[in-house]
Every structure is written in C-alpha cells, then in structure tokens.
C-alpha cells in the first residue's frame, strides 16, 4: 500500500468507520430496548404473551441474520415498502439480536433469588411493581457483562451490511482491494475491528466492576 493509495482510500475508510460505528450504536440501543421489553413481557408470566414472546425469541434466534437481512432488503420492496439499506440493516439486527438480549435477560431473571421476590410479594407489592421495580432492574444489572459481549457481536454483525451495498467498514476494505488488488486493506479493517472489540471488552470490565460495587 503506497502512500498515495492510502491517502486516496482514507476518506472511504473513515466514512466506513463512521457508518459502522453509528449503525452499530443505534442497533445496540434498539436491540437492548426491544430485548428488554420482550424479557419483561416474558417475566409477567401471562400465558398468552409469554408464548408469543417465546415464539419470537425462538424464530429470530435461530434464523441467520443474513437471511433476515436479505428478506427485508429484497423482499419488502415486493410489497411496496422501500426502506434505505441502512434502515433495513438496523431493523434486521434489532430483530435478530433483541431475541438474544431477551434470552440473556430471561436467564438473569431466572437467577433472581426467590427470597427477594417472596419478600417483595409479602410486602404487598403488586405483580407490576415486583416485575418493574425488583426483577427487571436486578436481572438487567446482572446481565450487563454479557450484554457488553453481545454488543461486540452486534458490531461484528454490522459487517454484513457490506452485502447489501452499504459503505461500511468491511465494504471500505473490499473497495480498496477491488481498486488496487491489494489485500492490505482487509488487514487494516481487521485490526480496526479488533481495536473496537478490545475497547468494548474494556468498557465491559469497567461496567462489571461498577455493577459489582452497587450490589
């Protein structure tokens, strides 16, 4: 990679980095929100709602992201819904990852000590209060370390955007290869991905410590 080639590529790379970071940030926020909602609905133990949410979790956990992505990207225009590629991608990731987030929080909900729930019930708290004030906050805090791990998965997931013509980090790397037939760019983006991954891991450690202190 000569200097001229690199300077020529740099704007593309920065653009790709921006798209990857922004879209993964949005996707992380939406996935955690939707996933939490699903987990709360499961926690209420309403038979019908619970069953619906379980089906939702099962379907989107076990379907590959790429299939959902292509389904939305190529399928929706057939029924006259045309979304920008980036929106499609974020929606697909949200559907897919919210199921994972919901499953993580559901696992934490199972581990909420029964004594605490019994104490809350015996104090006369209503079901809504028990779920919203006790079970969910506790479960969410306990699942923060796993959720940060899941966020790094979401960032990696955004690399699939390159397959639906979004200029993300992955596509920026391929673009350089296609222009100069030099695969150094793929190494460069690989190390950028690793840097992001290490950063997230570090943030996860800090958050984990904070959650431990508050407990």
């Amino acid at each position: 990679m000569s200097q001229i080639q690199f300077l020529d590529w740099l704007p593309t790379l920065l653009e790709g980095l921006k798209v990857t970071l922004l879209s993964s940030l949005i996707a992380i926020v939406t996935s955690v929100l939707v996933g939490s909602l699903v987990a709360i609905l499961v926690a209420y133990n309403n038979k019908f709602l619970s069953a619906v949410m379980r089906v939702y979790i099962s379907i989107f956990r076990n379907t590959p992201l790429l299939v959902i992505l292509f389904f939305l990207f190529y399928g929706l225009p057939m029924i006259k819904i045309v979304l920008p590629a980036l929106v499609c991608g974020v929606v697909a990731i949200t559907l897919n990852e919210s199921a994972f987030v919901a499953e993580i929080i559901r696992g934490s909900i199972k581990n909420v000590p029964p004594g605490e729930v019994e104490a809350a019930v015996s104090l006369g708290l209503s079901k809504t209060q028990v779920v919203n004030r006790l079970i969910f906050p506790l479960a969410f805090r306990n699942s923060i370390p796993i959720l940060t791990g899941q966020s790094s998965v979401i960032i990696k997931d955004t690399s699939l955007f390159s397959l639906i013509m979004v200029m993300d980090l992955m596509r920026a790397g391929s673009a350089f290869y296609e222009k100069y037939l030099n695969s150094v760019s793929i190494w460069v983006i690989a190390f950028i991905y690793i840097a992001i991954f290490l950063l997230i891991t570090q943030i996860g450690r800090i958050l984990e410590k904070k959650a431990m202190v508050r407990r």
Partner: protein
Amino acid sequence: MSLIQMIKFMSSGLVITAELVPLCVLTTLVAGLILGILMYKKIPGLNIILFAYKTFMRGIPAIVILRLLYYNINLSSAFFTAFLGLSLYHAAYVGDIVRGCFEAIPKGQMMAGESLGVGYWTIMRKVYIPQIIKPMVPMLCGQYVLLVKDTTIVYVVGVMDIMWMGRQLMALTFNPIAGYLLIGIFYYVLCALIELIGRRVEKKNDHKGPTRSLSSYY
C-alpha cells in the same frame, strides 16, 4: 415456479451447506479441544501466540476471515476456503469454551492424580475430559448454532451454497420473499434442532429443580 420446484432448484446448495456444517463442527471440536487444553496449560511463549490468535478471531467478523483467506491464500477450492475460514474462526470460540470448562475444575484433582503417579495426559483423558463434557455440551450447542448461521456468508468466497442458490432463484423468479422464507425455514429447523439438544442436556445438568414462577404468588 412452484414451491416443490424451488426446493428442487435449491437442493444442490442445500447439499453443500449440509456438507459444510458437520465438517466444520468436527474440525472445530477437535481443534477447540486441543486449543483449550493448550490455553489451560499456559505454556510460556505458546500462550502469547494462542492469546493473539484468540483475540484476532474473536475481534473480527467471520466475513473478514473469509475475505482474508480468499484474497491472500490462493486455494483451489472455494469450499475448502470456506471450510478453513469458518473452522479457524469458530475453533477460537470453542477453544475458549473448553478452557473455561477446564478452569472450572478444582486444581486439587490434578494434584491428587499427580501424587498418585498418574501422567498428565492420562489425568486429562480419564479425569478432566469426562467431567467437562456435561457442562460443555450446552455451550457448544450455542456456539454451533452460531456456526450454522455463519455458513450463510460463505457465498462471498464463491461457494454455491444455499444462499447462493437463493440469489439465483431470486434472479430467476423475481420472488425473494418465497425463496428467503424457504431458506429461513431450513436454517430455523437446523438451528432449533441443535438448540433443542443443548436445552435437553442443560436440563439434565440442572440439579436445582424447578423454580417458582411469579404466577404462583398471584
């Protein structure tokens, strides 16, 4: 094109995916077991290399390793590139799972074995590995669901798998909804099956008994 014709059209891709998955599962299992033991042993020098490998593989998306192999190493077969890429990628995860399971075993067992004069690898084979299988299976099932889902992207290196066929079908019939729905169902069945196995084993391992649900109070 009717549904049956669509399935027939995609069957060649389906076969390739069905070949790729067990191959990768077997390779990652063997490689992961070896990697996990080596990481657990913490051999100086080798440990750094393994850590770098693990961090590299865990840090990048699967598509990046496929592209790296595709552009850098001129392998004759696209299938082999995909197989190698996915195996390298997921072996790091499986290795980490194995290492975690090994570290959960109390160190005293190794000391007890050694004080009885049993060799290291015999202790591994006869004491450690039988113990880690039970807790490992659910975690491995989770990882293999991810592996199966990652096989969707192998078409970027030119493997004519089911996703590739789905694209061809889309160009032929202009009906992406039915095509991708079929592919989605195929993957759903495969992944749900693996997940089910994991759940079964997890339930067997769980000695806590049923927990009270909230509805029992109200």
